[in-house]
C-alpha cells in the first residue's frame, strides 16, 4: 500500500479513482477529468497536494546557503512572503528537482518540493546545509490544498478568520503569508489565480468539505496535468530531470547568471552549455486529429526529397495531452534548435503535422494560440 494524505478517506468517499503517484495513493479524477479541468478554468477547483514536501530552513546564513543551492537567486527575495521558482542542480547542470522557495524572514525560508523526489532532495539539501549551519526540517504534519480558478480566492476567503482573511485578501501574486498554524500563498500550477494553503493535517478534511460547500469542485491529478500543460508549466521527470539541464528545458528564465560572482551548484556546467547547447524545449500544436504523448518522436520538417542523404533531425515529446480548453492536442517537446515553424510527430507509426508555438497555450482562462 502506498502513502496516504489526510484527505484520502474524503477522496474515496467522493468516488475518486485512486492511482499511485510517486508512492502516494492520489485521486486521478472524481468522475470526469474534463469537467474538473473546465471548473478550474471557468470557476474554481481544488486539488489535494499534500503529497508535496514542505521543508523549512532556519539559520543566520540561510539566504547565503540558498544562493549556493539554487540556480535562481534567493538574493532577489527582498520582501517577506515573496516566492521564487527555481531548479536545484547537480554539478553537471542536470535538474535534481524544481521547487518554490518562500522568504519568510532573514533566518527562515520554506521550500515546497515534488513528492517523487522528496527523499533525494532532502538528502542533497542536508548534505550542503551543514557547511552553512542551516537546519533542515521537513514538515510532515502539514496538508496542502490548492484552490485554483477565477473565483478561487473569493470562495476561499470566507473560510479564514477575519484577521487572516485581511492578510490573504491582500496577497499579491507569488506571495505567501504564515497565518498562525496555516500558510496561505497566492501561487499555483494551473495558469489561473488562486491559493495554495498549507494547514495542519487535522484541519484538512473539515476545510476540504467547507470549500466544497462554497462551490469549489474537487479535481484530480489528471486535470492538474492538463491544466499545467496548457499553462506551459514543466513537470519534473517528464520535461526535465537529472539528465537534462534547465537551458534545454524551457527554464533558462529561472537561471540567474547575474550576479556573475554567485557560485551556485551547476553554474560551471551551465556556463559551457549556454554556448554549446543544441536543443531547446518548444510547444507543439497538433494540426491533425490524434493525441500527442510523451516519448513520441518529433521529426523536423524540410528533410524531404533531395536531402535524403542527411539523417533527419529528431527530437522527442516530453509531455503531451489533449487540451480541453483548445479542443486539440498540445505538447512540450525537446528538439534541436531550429528556425522551422512546423514539425512532424510519429504517432503509432505514422507522421502527423504539428506547429511549433511558444508556451503557454492558455493563461487566465484565455487561449493564447488559435484553436
Amino acid at each position, binding site marked *: 500500500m502506498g502513502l496516504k494524505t489526510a484527505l484520502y478517506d474524503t477522496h474515496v468517499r467522493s468516488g475518486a479513482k485512486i492511482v499511485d503517484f510517486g508512492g502516494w495513493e492520489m485521486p486521478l479524477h472524481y468522475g*470526469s*477529468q*474534463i469537467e474538473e479541468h473546465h471548473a478550474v478554468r471557468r470557476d474554481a477547483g481544488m486539488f489535494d497536494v499534500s503529497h508535496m514536501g514542505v521543508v523549512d530552513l532556519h539559520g543566520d546564513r540561510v539566504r547565503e546557503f540558498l544562493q549556493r543551492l539554487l540556480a535562481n537567486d534567493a538574493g532577489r527575495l527582498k520582501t517577506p512572503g515573496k516566492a521564487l521558482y527555481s531548479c536545484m542542480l547537480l554539478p553537471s547542470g542536470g535538474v535534481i528537482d524544481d521547487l518554490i522557495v518562500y522568504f519568510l524572514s532573514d533566518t527562515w525560508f520554506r521550500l515546497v518540493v515534488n513528492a517523487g523526489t522528496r527523499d533525494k532532495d532532502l538528502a542533497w539539501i542536508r548534505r550542503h546545509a551543514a557547511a552553512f549551519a542551516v537546519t533542515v526540517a521537513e514538515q510532515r504534519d502539514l496538508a496542502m490544498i490548492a484552490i485554483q480558478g477565477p473565483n478561487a480566492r473569493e470562495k476561499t476567503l470566507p473560510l479564514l478568520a477575519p484577521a487572516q482573511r485581511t492578510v490573504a485578501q491582500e496577497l499579491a501574486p507569488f506571495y505567501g503569508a504564515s497565518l498562525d498554524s496555516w500558510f496561505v500563498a497566492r501561487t499555483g500550477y494551473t495558469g489561473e489565480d488562486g491559493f495554495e494553503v498549507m494547514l495542519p493535517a487535522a484541519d484538512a478534511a473539515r476545510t476540504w468539505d467547507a470549500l466544497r460547500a462554497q462551490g469549489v469542485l474537487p479535481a484530480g491529478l*489528471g486535470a492538474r496535468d*492538463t491544466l499545467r500543460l496548457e499553462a506551459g508549466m514543466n513537470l519534473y521527470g517528464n520535461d526535465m530531470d537529472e539528465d537534462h539541464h534547465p537551458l534545454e528545458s524551457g527554464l533558462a528564465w529561472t537561471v540567474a547568471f547575474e550576479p556573475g560572482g554567485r557560485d551556485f551548484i551547476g553554474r560551471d556546467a551551465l556556463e559551457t552549455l549556454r554556448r554549446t547547447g543544441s536543443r531547446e524545449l518548444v510547444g507543439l500544436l497538433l494540426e491533425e*486529429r*490524434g493525441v500527442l504523448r510523451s516519448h513520441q518522436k518529433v521529426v523536423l520538417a524540410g528533410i524531404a526529397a533531395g536531402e535524403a542523404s542527411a539523417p533527419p533531425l529528431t527530437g522527442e515529446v516530453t509531455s503531451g495531452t*489533449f487540451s480541453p480548453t483548445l479542443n486539440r492536442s498540445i505538447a512540450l517537446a525537446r528538439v534541436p534548435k531550429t528556425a522551422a515553424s512546423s514539425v512532424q510527430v510519429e504517432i503509432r507509426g505514422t507522421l502527423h503535422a504539428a506547429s511549433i508555438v511558444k508556451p503557454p497555450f492558455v493563461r487566465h482562462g484565455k487561449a493564447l494560440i488559435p484553436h
Partner: protein
Amino acid sequence: MSNIPKDLRYTKSHEWVRMAQGAAHGAAPNGAVEVGISEHAQSALGDLVFVEVPEAGRALTAGDACAVVESVKAASDVYSPVSGKVTAGNAALAAQPELVNQDPYGAGWLFRIQTDSPLDAASLMSAADYEKYLADEAK
C-alpha cells in the same frame, strides 16, 4: 456494478459483440456484427478525446488491433473479436468521441464487420461469464 447487457457477447479485452438479429440500434445488416467497448472499459479509460475506427473494406483477423480509443491520459487499442471484413466504422465518433462514454452499447459503437464464417458464439463470453470475469479481475 457495471452495466452488462444480456444480449451481447464479450471478450477478455472488454470489447462487446452484437449479433445481427439482436441489433436494436440501427441494425448491422446481413449477418454483420457490431463491435464496441464495454461500460467497464469506458469507465476505466475515463473521458475519451479521440477515437480512431477501421475503414470499411478493411480485412481483419480476430485479435487484430483495429481501433484506438484515447482518453485524456492514455491510448488503448481495441482488438477485433472476430475475423472478417469491416462494413462500417462509426463516423460520428470523429467529432464526438464522448459518445463512447455516454452510450457505450448504443451510439458509441465502433465498427461493424461481416464475419468470414458463421460466428461461433462459444468463442466469446456471455454476459454472465463477463460479469464473473470482471469480478475476478477486480480481486
